[in-house]
């Protein structure tokens, strides 16, 4: 964005960039009109249900010494605050934020950096943790507010969601500006570590984020509620404008990661024997290289692995803990797994001409996807389990949850990668494995799956052993059956030709 000499020029330039962002959005929306409507209605339905139903559920029995319920007294403020962390984490992991148009397409259009920045704000919800966080926030807030205050409480949540998302996105662009500047990735890491340390010290000193209870209380008085909403609206606009400055500066600098990863020499490793084991090892090696050398996946995976650890300072309920492997795994799946064949890019055509059984290629690819899911979801889960002092029975259910979520996510990856292949270049940290509209659909479905499975698993902790075993085996069998069916479909040359053709187009 040219920082114009006069405020009139500045406003004109801002209006033009807003118009550009709208045009690009309309262009991308045209790729999935029906899908968008379906996704939009589904999301709206789930959101309305989550706003209404919890309000009519009895308040929780466990009351804190301070007088409030466990929800509004301890968990809710953290939940409100963590939306900023989740958005900022997603933005940092994706190089400032997702791009409305892939880099190689964007070069053909005169899209300004502010339009690009606004696009990244719009795409912030392409994040399973963000969606689940918003739903949890809505459900727990209306539950705490009660049936008489559903509408004001929901509007307050909406105001906060907008404000926190814009703030988180601004933080993400600030971090990206530091990374692309002279301080580089090390400077960025030091700043993030410094902020995390300050936060930890503040928490240790007894500081608590946001008086969520006070905000909810404001819904009792029309004037206080309106004032709260007005403040949130003002803050949203202020953060939106403030975020443009680091974004514009960051976008003017080249991304170091792409250039560095593409220029570095990789030490050659010995060639495996041409036996079936050796072939599998070679296929896995190439697939692992494709995953871990891809900027978008590396940065996203590291942040997803680290971010839940931040929750160790907060109070994490069992229901949330049991969902962590699913939420983090779903986040990892959205980095590349929903379009797993795109890792080969246009090389898929060449790979398809090599003499190897299709099943061997499928096994190697989805073994690597499973490795990534576990590598990303286990660290946070283990740290949170230790920090919350989880008992033996909970640990067993948590281990089962890791298995069930991994199988479910793997089955989703295998099926969706066959059904919806897209040609994408994942070399940019801002790239997504599918167009934004499709990603919204994927994120929504994964959020629902993880939430439902998480709720089932969370109540299992009090169930008899045989029931725990039965439910876990049932869920695993369902997922494994779907993976087997996807493997059979991949063996069909017509299906493979369609996937290879679309991925390489």
């Amino acid at each position, binding site marked *: 964005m040219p920082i114009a000499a006069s405020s009139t020029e500045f406003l004109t330039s801002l209006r033009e960039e807003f118009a550009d962002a709208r045009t690009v959005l309309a262009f991308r929306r045209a790729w999935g009109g029906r899908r968008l409507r379906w996704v939009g209605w589904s999301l709206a339905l789930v959101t309305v249900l989550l706003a209404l139903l919890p309000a009519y559920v009895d308040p929780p029995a466990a009351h804190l010494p301070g007088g409030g319920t466990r929800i509004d007294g301890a968990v809710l403020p953290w939940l409100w605050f963590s939306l900023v962390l989740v958005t900022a984490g997603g933005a940092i992991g994706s190089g400032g934020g997702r791009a409305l148009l892939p880099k190689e397409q964007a070069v053909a259009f005169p899209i300004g950096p502010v339009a690009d920045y606004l696009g990244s704000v719009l795409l912030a919800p392409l994040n399973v943790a963000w969606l689940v966080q918003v739903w949890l926030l809505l459900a727990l807030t209306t539950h705490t507010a009660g049936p008489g205050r559903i509408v004001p409480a929901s509007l307050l949540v909406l105001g906060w969601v907008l404000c926190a998302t814009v703030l988180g996105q601004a933080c993400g662009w600030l971090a990206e500006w530091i990374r692309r500047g002279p301080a580089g990735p090390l400077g960025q890491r030091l700043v993030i570590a410094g902020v995390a340390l300050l936060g930890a010290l503040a928490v240790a000193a007894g500081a608590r984020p946001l008086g969520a209870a006070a905000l909810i209380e404001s819904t009792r008085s029309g004037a206080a509620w309106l004032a709260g909403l007005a403040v949130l609206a003002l803050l949203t606009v202020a953060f939106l404008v403030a975020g443009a400055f680091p974004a514009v500066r960051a976008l003017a600098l080249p991304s170091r990661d792409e*250039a560095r*990863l*593409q*220029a*570095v*020499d*990789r*030490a*050659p490793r010995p*060639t*495996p024997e*041409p036996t079936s084991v*050796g*072939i599998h090892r*070679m*296929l896995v*090696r*190439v697939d692992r*290289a*494709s*995953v871990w*050398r*891809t900027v978008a996946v590396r940065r996203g995976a590291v942040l997803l692995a680290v971010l839940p650890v931040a929750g160790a300072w907060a109070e994490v309920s069992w229901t949330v803990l049991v969902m962590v492997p699913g939420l983090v795994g779903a986040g990892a799946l959205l980095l590349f797994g929903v379009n797993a064949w795109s*890792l*080969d*890019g*246009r*090389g898929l*055509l*060449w*790979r*398809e*001409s*090599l*003499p*190897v*059984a299709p099943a061997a290629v499928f096994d190697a690819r989805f073994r690597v996807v499973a490795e990534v899911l576990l590598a990303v979801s286990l660290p946070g889960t283990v740290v949170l389990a230790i920090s919350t002092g989880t008992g033996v029975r909970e640990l067993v259910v948590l281990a089962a949850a890791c298995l069930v979520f991994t199988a479910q996510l793997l089955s989703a990856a295998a099926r969706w990668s066959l059904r919806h292949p897209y040609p994408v*270049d*994942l*070399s940019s940290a801002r790239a997504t494995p599918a167009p934004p509209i499709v990603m919204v659909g994927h994120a929504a479905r994964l959020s629902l799956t993880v939430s439902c499975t998480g709720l089932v698993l969370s109540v299992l902790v009090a169930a008899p052993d045989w029931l725990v075993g039965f439910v876990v085996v049932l869920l695993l069998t369902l997922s494994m059956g779907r993976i087997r069916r996807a493997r059979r479909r991949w063996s069909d*040359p*017509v299906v*493979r*030709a369609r996937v*290879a*053709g679309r991925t*390489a*187009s």
Partner: protein
Amino acid sequence: MDGAAVQIRGLTVRFGEVEAVAGLDLDVPAGRATGLLGRNGAGKSTTMRVLAGVVPATTGCVHVVGIDVARRPVDVKRRIGYCPDVGGLVPQATPWEHLQLAATLHRLPDGWQRRARELLERFDLADAAHRPTAGFSHGMGRRLSVLLADLAEPEVLLLDEPFDGVDPNGADATVDLIDAAVRRGAAVLLSTHLRDLAVRACDAILVLRRGEPVATHAALTLAGEEGDRAYRSLLD
């Protein structure tokens, strides 16, 4: 088979309503290089993809060195080398990893490394052998695709647009590679828009139009200005 390394009879390929190849008959003899020419959308790349086992035929019979592509695709893939028209490289893998993957899957005996290094030298890629291909220029990528196709010294070499964006040295290396393949008895099928290079590299040229063959010429008859006029008259 009648001695043809590639035999296509009545090949049609449809993608939904679009008929990419419509009843193609083609024989490519061993020890010869055959060029496939035609306008965009004439069906050249689709024919190559069918021969490489990447796209199944809708109808028709396709045999490569006597093996039915539809029935025994993996056996066919052991006998062919394929350079696709677009990209053809795994972005985050290095040229050496591509070569290792191809050598392992083709079950090449130990010693393939020497040939691989020679090919990398010849195509001026030795210095970039261990860098991910995502950072390659278009021409570098094309050169690597060509040498990958020839690594296993296949009986049938399928080169789709190998000269696209390649500098003159790279084009020379590709023509030399085609000559060497023909000398060792391989059948080479070359698809390109560059008529001059096709004339230089091939013995015969088949012109396709809207998925159908319209003419087969000895390559030299399409050389020079006269050849250009003859070729253009076949396109419309």
